[in-house]
């Protein structure tokens, strides 16, 4: 062992990224991101932006165009690429040439996603496909097709636990947590702690419910805006939540408590401020799909006859196993 691997940090690093796990969570991540990305891709008319009058493109810089190879006047080509991306995503989800499909769809989404905003800004964050691009590529670099595929790879059973199944899921989880970490950090760097003040939060809420071109929900926002303490609690709570969410990477308890709260957090923002955050379904990569698979198999008598181990992937330092015993109950094993 070299000096680095003997150090404490290297041990933490290895435990975090390379604790052997089963391939199911990786396969689930592939299916989740393929299905989600297909939904967003099908919900947009990205190719049509290439067909807009040239005046819309007149202020798009050359470096932005070449960065993504996004140019005006190639409507047919872009439509073809959208279809190709869609087919690749279907294949990725179904597990047909999964690594190649993930790679092709990741690269094509890198090219297509910026069309949504390129006429005024060259980085389409918060529009739904940001994490998809890097997650699909990460999946392409990993053995994401070793489980839950339509085309079997000559194996009747899932592969044995391995470290290669852990780091891609972990990296995608890190990318997701970074959304909140940097969103909280940006608020403090740009505005300062006063971002969380009752006055600022109240103004944000009022703007979002008074602007009638974006007003769908009004009641919750109006209720909160009328209460200074509620606004202050929302501001402080948002910063604490965004900066603290990183804990889900290291603590199973935090994961179980905070990840469902993220969905509630976004539901509150949706109803109170009319702002959606499409990435919410991606949080399913924090679920333990071994437990889900075991739970789904529980009613089948042929499964319950043979006890087997299913690894809990998201347990970080500790390797937790669950055993499905003959009574069909789940018992933790360490």
């Amino acid at each position, binding site marked *: 062992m070299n000096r680095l691997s003997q150090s404490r940090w290297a041990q933490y690093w290895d435990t975090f990224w390379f604790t052997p796990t089963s391939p199911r969570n990786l396969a689930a991540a592939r299916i989740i991101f393929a299905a989600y990305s297909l939904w967003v891709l099908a919900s947009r008319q990205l190719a049509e932006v290439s067909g807009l009058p040239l*005046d819309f493109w007149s202020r798009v810089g050359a470096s932005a165009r070449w960065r993504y190879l996004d140019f005006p006047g190639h409507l047919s080509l872009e439509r073809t690429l959208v279809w190709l991306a869609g087919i690749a995503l279907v294949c990725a989800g179904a597990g047909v040439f999964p690594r190649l499909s993930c790679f092709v769809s990741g690269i094509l989404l890198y090219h297509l996603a910026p069309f949504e905003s390129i006429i005024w800004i060259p980085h389409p*964050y918060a529009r739904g496909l940001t994490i998809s691009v890097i997650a699909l590529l990460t999946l392409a670099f990993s053995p994401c097709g070793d489980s839950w595929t339509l085309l079997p790879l000559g194996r009747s059973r899932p592969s044995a636990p391995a470290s290669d199944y852990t780091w891609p899921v972990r*990296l995608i989880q890190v990318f997701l947590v970074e959304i909140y970490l940097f969103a909280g950090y940006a608020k403090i760097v740009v505005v300062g702690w006063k971002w969380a003040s009752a006055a600022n939060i109240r103004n944000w809420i009022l703007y979002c419910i*008074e602007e009638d071109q974006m007003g769908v929900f009004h009641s919750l926002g109006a209720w909160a805006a009328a209460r200074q303490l509620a606004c202050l609690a929302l501001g402080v709570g948002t910063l604490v939540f965004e900066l603290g969410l990183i804990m889900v990477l290291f603590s199973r308890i935090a994961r179980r408590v905070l990840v469902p709260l993220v969905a509630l957090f976004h539901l509150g923002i949706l109803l109170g401020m009319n702002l959606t955050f499409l990435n919410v379904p991606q949080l399913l990569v924090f679920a333990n799909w071994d437990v889900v698979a075991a739970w789904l198999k529980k009613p089948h008598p042929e499964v319950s006859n043979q006890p087997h181990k299913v690894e809990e992937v998201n347990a970080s330092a500790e390797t937790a196993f669950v055993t499905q015993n003959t009574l069909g109950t789940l018992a933790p094993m360490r």
Partner: protein
Amino acid sequence: MKTNIVSTIAFVGFVGLGLLAATGGRFLAEPAKRRLTNAFLAFALTVSFAAGLTQHNLWPFSSWPVLAMPMPAATFDLPTPRIVGVDANGNEYDIDYRAWQPLSLEELTSWLNLHFFHLDRASEDRVGKFFLDRANRAREQALAPSGLAYPNRWLGPLTAPTHILHPAIWSRAGRVPRNCFVRLRIYQESWDLEARRLDPAKLTRVLAYEYPLR
């Protein structure tokens, strides 16, 4: 320009190292393979944290500056554009956000604020004609039995919403203007948040553009 170049390098590096870790690992012993994977992970972390900590958006490694600005008590410094259609009788009508597909309303209003008013008049009028044609086409579709389509007709209302929600004001045929639009206007609206809370009609509206010009 610098951000575009750095972002491209970061993305190419991410893909290149990932491919190296994925393909090179097949021909290497376990320790060497692990080193390649570590290099990929370290690169991905470095780039993504660099984007976040420096607040330079290196998309797809984003800095995520979500709502990272103070909201003033009045919006006079950043007015909101509103496009309205005008019929032959001079009546003004709001236009459903779905009329502007493939652009979402928030991308369109941001582009209007940032670039449209800096175009020369001829360019503005080409865009104005485009808007007028789109608005009339959407109005006709909204009046048709099938209604105004969502971006994906099969998904319908299950279409993924944009970051900002918009009311589908032409979902009911009764709310769709019967007469063709002959003119299009863009207003810049601003208001005091507290004043408008008490009276929703209290806002300042300035005509910024009209097509065709009278």
